[in-house]
C-alpha cells in the first residue's frame, strides 16, 4: 500500500513569538517541528504499512529550515520525505497550499491513501485535507477518531460529525484527516519518541527538495503562493485577554464565599 502523509512543520506555540507588525511568526524565535496532529497520521501510516507493506511518503510545504522536522518524520518511520520549498510558494493561503500539495501528489504518481492531521496548531483551519481531496477528485473524511478496518480497496472509519459519531466507508484512493486521540482498530495511538538509532539514521537520510519549476509541467504556477491565494490578512493583533480580576484566595471558606458571590451575580442560586 502506498501511503502519503501530509506533514506541516509548525512552530512550537508555547515558545514561538509573533511578529505582530508583519502578521507572521517570528521565524527566528522558534524552530519548526511536526504539527502535533500530524504525528498521529505517521503512527497510523506505520500500522497500515505493517499490515500491507508498501511505502510511506511524507509531503510538506515549508521554508528550507523545516528540514529537521522532516528528519524527525523519517526517524519516526516515514520512508521518503519530500519538501516543497520555493519563494514562489511563499504567502500561500489554504487554497494555494492545497493546490500545491495536490500537484506534488499527482507528480508522485500512484497512491492508495493520504493521511493528515485534522488541523494545525498555528493555522487551525482544518482546510488542507478536504481541499487536497477535492483537487485530486478522491473522497475524504475529516475529524476521524478511529480506523475501524482497512482492506486493499477500502477503509472504514469513525468520524466526529459534531453531535454524533458516524461510521463511514471510503473506497480507496481516499484521504483521511485524523483527530487526536485516535484509535487504530482497538489500539489507542500515542506517538512515541523515536529511538536513538532511528534519529542517527534519519540524520543521514536524503530529504528531496522540490521547487515550483519541478511541478510546472502539470501545475499552473499562477496558482502557487501569494499570487494564487484568494484570501488576504488585512489586520492582525493579539487576542485581548478578558480583564480578569485574578483574585488569589488561600482560605477555603473565603474561596467558597467568593464563588457563591459569582453564582449570585449570575442568578444561578
Amino acid at each position: 500500500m502506498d501511503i502519503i502523509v501530509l506533514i506541516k512543520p509548525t512552530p512550537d506555540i508555547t515558545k514561538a513569538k509573533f511578529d505582530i507588525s508583519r502578521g507572521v511568526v517570528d521565524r527566528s524565535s522558534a524552530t519548526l517541528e511536526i504539527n502535533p496532529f500530524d504525528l498521529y497520521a505517521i503512527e497510523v501510516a506505520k500500522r497500515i504499512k505493517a499490515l500491507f507493506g508498501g511505502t510511506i511518503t511524507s509531503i510538506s510545504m515549508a521554508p528550507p529550515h523545516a528540514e529537521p522536522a522532516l528528519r524527525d518524520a523519517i526517524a519516526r518511520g516515514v520512508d521518503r520525505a519530500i519538501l516543497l520549498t520555493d519563494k514562489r510558494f511563499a504567502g500561500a493561503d489554504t487554497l494555494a497550499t492545497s493546490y500545491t500539495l495536490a500537484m506534488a501528489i499527482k507528480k508522485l504518481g500512484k497512491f492508495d491513501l493520504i493521511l493528515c492531521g485534522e488541523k494545525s496548531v498555528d493555522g487551525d483551519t482544518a482546510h488542507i485535507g478536504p481541499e487536497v481531496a477535492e483537487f485530486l477528485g478522491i473522497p475524504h473524511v475529516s475529524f476521524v477518531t478511529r480506523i475501524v478496518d482497512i482492506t486493499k480497496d477500502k477503509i472504514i472509519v469513525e468520524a466526529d460529525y459534531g453531535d454524533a459519531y458516524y461510521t463511514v466507508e471510503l473506497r480507496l484512493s481516499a484521504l483521511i484527516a485524523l483527530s487526536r486521540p485516535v484509535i487504530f482498530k482497538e489500539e489507542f495511538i500515542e506517538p512515541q519518541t523515536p529511538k536513538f538509532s532511528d534519529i542517527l539514521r534519519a540524520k543521514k537520510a536524503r530529504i528531496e527538495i522540490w521547487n515550483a519549476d519541478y511541478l510546472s509541467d502539470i501545475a499552473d504556477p499562477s496558482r502557487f503562493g501569494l499570487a494564487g491565494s484568494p484570501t488576504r490578512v488585512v489586520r492582525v493583533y493579539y487576542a485581548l485577554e478578558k480583564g480578569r480580576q485574578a483574585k488569589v484566595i488561600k482560605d477555603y471558606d473565603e474561596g467558597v464565599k467568593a464563588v457563591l458571590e459569582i453564582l449570585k451575580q449570575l442568578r444561578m442560586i
Partner: protein
Amino acid sequence: MSARNILIYAENYSGNIHRASYELLGKARELISKIGGEVYATIVTTKEDAEKHAKDLIAYGADKVVEYIADKSLLPNQQVHKEALLDAINFVQPKLVLIPATPWGRSLGPRVAAAIKTGITADCLDIYIDENGEIIQVRPAFTGNIIAHIKTLTLPVMATIRPGVFPPPKPNYERRGDVIVREMKLSPNVTETLKVLGVVRTKTVRLSDADVIVSVGKGLRSKEDVKLFEELAKELGGVLGCSKPLVDMGWLERDRQVGFSGNTVRPKLYIALGISGAPQHIAGMKDSQYVIAVNLDPSAPIAKYSDVFIIGDMYEFAKRLLSIIKDQKMKKS
C-alpha cells in the same frame, strides 16, 4: 451585475437542523442591507421534513429556501451535501456563503470552496462590512493567541462561523418566504466512493451548550473520584468537563475534553479544578464569562486567566462548595 445575496447552509445530517444554522440566519439579516439582495437558506432534507424545515428557516430569517430532497439514508453522506451546495451556489450566485463551523461544516466548507476555487475562512468569531463595503472575516489563529481580520478577493466569499458567537434570532412563523425545490442531481459514484454505515453514538454531553462547566484535570487522583465532581456540576446545573490528559488516560470520554483539540467553550461560569492551564486548554475556555480555578500550585498558569484563583485542594474545595449548595437548596424547599 455584481453578486448580491447571502446564502446560509443549514446543516442537516440527522433530520434535525443544527441550531447554529439559525444563528447564521440572524447574522445574515443584519448584514443583508449592506450587501443587497436577499437571504437564502439551502438545505438537504427528506420528503417528510421538507415543509417543516422550510417553515423553520423562513421563521428564523430566510427570504428564500433552496431545498434538495434526498433519501433519509443519504443525509449523513457529505458528498451528497457537497453536490447540493455547489448547485445552490450556482443557482443563487451569492456574494457570501456562511456555514456553521461544526466538524461537519469545517469538512464540507473547504471541499466546496476548492471545487469552485474560492477563498474560505475557518471558524470565524465575527464578520462585518468595512467602510469600503468589503466583507471582513474575523478569526483566531495560533491556538487562539492571535486574531486576524481577513478579506477574500474571489466570489463568493465563504466562511465557517463558530457556533454560539451570534445569538439565535427569535423565530417568527408569520414571516413569508419562497421555497424552491431543486432537483438533486448526483454525479456518478458519489454514493459508492463514500458510504455511511451508521451512527456509532450520539453525544450525550454537549459542553458547547452548557451555562456552567466544572472541569477536572490532572489533580484528579482516581477515575472513581469523578463522581464527586460530576455531582458538583449537576448541583450547579452544569456539565462535567476535563482537560486532555484525563481523556488520554481513558478516565473520561473525549466529548468532555475542553481545549484546542477538544471543545471550545464559552459558558457563563467555568470552574477549573486541578487544571494547571496549558496553552491548549486556555484556548478552549478563555472566553468564558467567569473563571474560577482551584490548584495546589500557586504558580499554575491558569491563575492569570481566572477571576478567582483558590490555592488549595480541589477535593476539599468541591466538598465544601457542594455541602453549602445542598444546604441552600434544602432551606429553599
